[in-house]
């Protein structure tokens, strides 16, 4: 069934792939190469002088217990954000799919938070939980619960997960809803006639048929949690308290741009690059096999 097209010359295919190659080079290969190169040096902040240190930056990093701890923080954070936002997205999509009246309104409202930039979402949640002026912290205090995310790591973690998942629920909702609507009604109805309960139908028909979308969302959400939640963390906690919300990518930023340690920051970028590469290979090699298209 596979169709193969052959070009006669070499210049047309070369021309056609050139833009993509150029973009990859400018935005991926060149910066990655720079990161790898820089990770071998110890420069001063102003870029006035630099010293070749070989693998010392990596040695320095791997002997730092806080760097090792940030791996754990990243795993907890990414898992919590991906799982909670996907579960809630699926739940809301299942509900919205069954709506008969006013579906459009609900759907629009549910998609709305996705339009808000992560940094803005961070500030919004920060305002609600701010120790001085926050409404949420005020009511929590009235209920006898002391809220102070500047001091308590678990509260800070909860808050950044909440703020990061919030906008993401909309995104997942959108895809799950599309996926649900693409499932032929006849299959569901046939199963219903055969006496399968809602949960039975959901578990044996809907979930397997949604698996391509679920897999896609899993990849996208993990990438999101790894890289795009930066704004949320920066605005809410700046990685604190005690680095309890410092995920890997935030540490790249804070060591590089707050602490001006560009050598260490570059070394972290290289480690992150390798890590994401491995993660992607695992996802496509092992999880994708279980996906039904």
């Amino acid at each position, binding site marked *: 069934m596979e169709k193969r097209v052959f070009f006669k010359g070499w210049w047309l295919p070369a021309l056609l792939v050139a833009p993509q190659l150029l973009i990859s080079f400018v935005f991926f290969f060149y910066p990655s190469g720079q990161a790898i190169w820089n990770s071998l040096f110890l420069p001063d902040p102003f870029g006035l002088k630099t010293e070749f240190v070989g693998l010392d930056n990596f040695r320095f990093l791997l002997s730092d217990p806080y760097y090792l701890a940030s791996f754990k923080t990243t795993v907890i954070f990414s898992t919590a954000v991906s799982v909670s936002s996907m579960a809630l997205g699926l739940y809301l999509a299942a509900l919205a799919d069954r709506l008969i009246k006013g579906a459009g309104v609900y759907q629009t409202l549910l998609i709305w938070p996705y339009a808000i930039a992560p940094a803005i979402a961070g500030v919004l949640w920060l305002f609600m939980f701010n120790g001085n002026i926050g409404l949420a912290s005020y009511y929590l205090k009235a209920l006898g619960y002391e809220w102070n995310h500047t001091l308590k790591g678990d509260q800070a973690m909860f808050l950044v997960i909440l703020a990061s998942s919030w906008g993401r629920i909309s995104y997942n909702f959108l895809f799950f809803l599309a996926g649900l609507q693409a499932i032929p009604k006849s299959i569901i109805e046939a199963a219903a006639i055969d006496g399968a309960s809602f949960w039975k139908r959901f578990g044996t028909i809907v979930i397997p048929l949604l698996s391509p979308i679920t897999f896609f969302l899993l990849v996208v959400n993990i990438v999101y949690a790894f890289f795009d939640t930066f704004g949320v963390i920066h605005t809410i906690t700046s990685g604190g308290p005690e*680095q309890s919300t410092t995920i890997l990518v935030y540490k790249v930023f804070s060591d590089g*741009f707050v602490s001006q340690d560009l050598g260490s920051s570059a070394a972290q970028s290289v480690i992150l690059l390798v890590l994401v590469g491995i993660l992607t290979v695992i996802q496509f090699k092992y999880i994708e096999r279980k996906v039904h298209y």
Partner: protein
Amino acid sequence: MKHLKAIIASIALFAMFAGTSLQAKVEIQWWHAFGGRLGELLDEQVNKFNASQNKYTVVHTRKGNYSETLNAGIAAFRAGQHPNILMVFEVGTASLMAAKGAYVPMYQLMKDAGQKFNPKGFVSAVSGYYTTTDGKMLSMPYNSSTPVLWVNKDLMKKAGLDPEMDLSTWKRVGNALDAAKAKGIDMPFCTCWHSWVHLENFSAYHNIPFATKANGFAGLDTELAFNSPVHIKHIQTLGKWAQEGKFKYMGRRNEAGKNFRAGECMLMTESSAGYAGIKKEAKFEFGIRHLPYYGATEAPQNTIIGGSSLWALSGKSKEENKATAAFLAFLSRTDIQAKWHQDTGYLGVTTAAAKKTKSSGFYKTNPGTDLAGIQMMRNKVTQNSKGLRLGSFDQIRGIIDEEMEGVYNGTKTAQVALDSAVKRGNVLLRRFERANK
């Protein structure tokens, strides 16, 4: 890495646009970190300078908080799009000093421009911070403050305490906090800048080293030393107060100032420069006291400064450097300095400004505003109380902040936290030493 490049590019682009303008007057850029009331006062100074002559125009831009301003300046320098004048807070001083070639030293700038400039006119406790060991002034002191104790007198009365009671030692402060807690006051104590107040100034005030090699003044091979029994005792006390609900931790910078100005916090340790905001916003009677100390040691030494100085960055034309020199000379004028001191609560950094303020009777009508100056200059400075000159210190402060948060939330003892902060900080000092050899 993609993101990092984008950030650099956007900063550079911004600076490029900010740099193009009419060529009639020589225009220079000043990047600073002041918003709010301080920002208004700074704007006033710039307008005054621009109106006072017709050769130069100063354009000022706020770049965020102190750290953000320093980082924006450094990133712009790497991209070759830096401002003429960069505000650098005291913590970044050692980083700038080590970056020879990134700045034009103050004495050089003034000499080249033919400006009359007398470094001796500055209060030595302040200028010493920005002067090399062989007496060359590298940057111009702009705003300098020192921590004091702020008292909400209304809350003191509510706690059944005499608002004028003696609060000179931490023990007495502790007693006052006990009383306040017993009367149901929600936030008896809070603090801003906790590393600066409770470790850095604490060390100078008790005349014990914060770091070896005269707190870094005597060499890059300095090591941190703030895990002595006296330090541990104090931080442990703060931790205990936090556990007992007498001390509420609001954040690493000056977040607690909001709570004090709103009338929630009874006693607050904060910079003397909290004055501008407190005077404007507080709807209660407030008082200023000296920073408390531990009565067991002899009378307190002196406290050290915080705040910023202005650095003239290198790579600018002769004309622009002349403009920079003229503006900095303007800022050190006695009338400008005296007004700044009286409006903000920052110290009068020139002796003439301090004298002028005194003779105008300002201290009599605004009791307590002279305490910061007295506290800084009351004793002959020792090598423990001259200041700090440590590389990567913004980062080290971050480490101290983290570790102390562990003490406040009860997961660490003061001993463990300070030992760990010293150990982690030393790693960074060695890295800085290596990068700047």
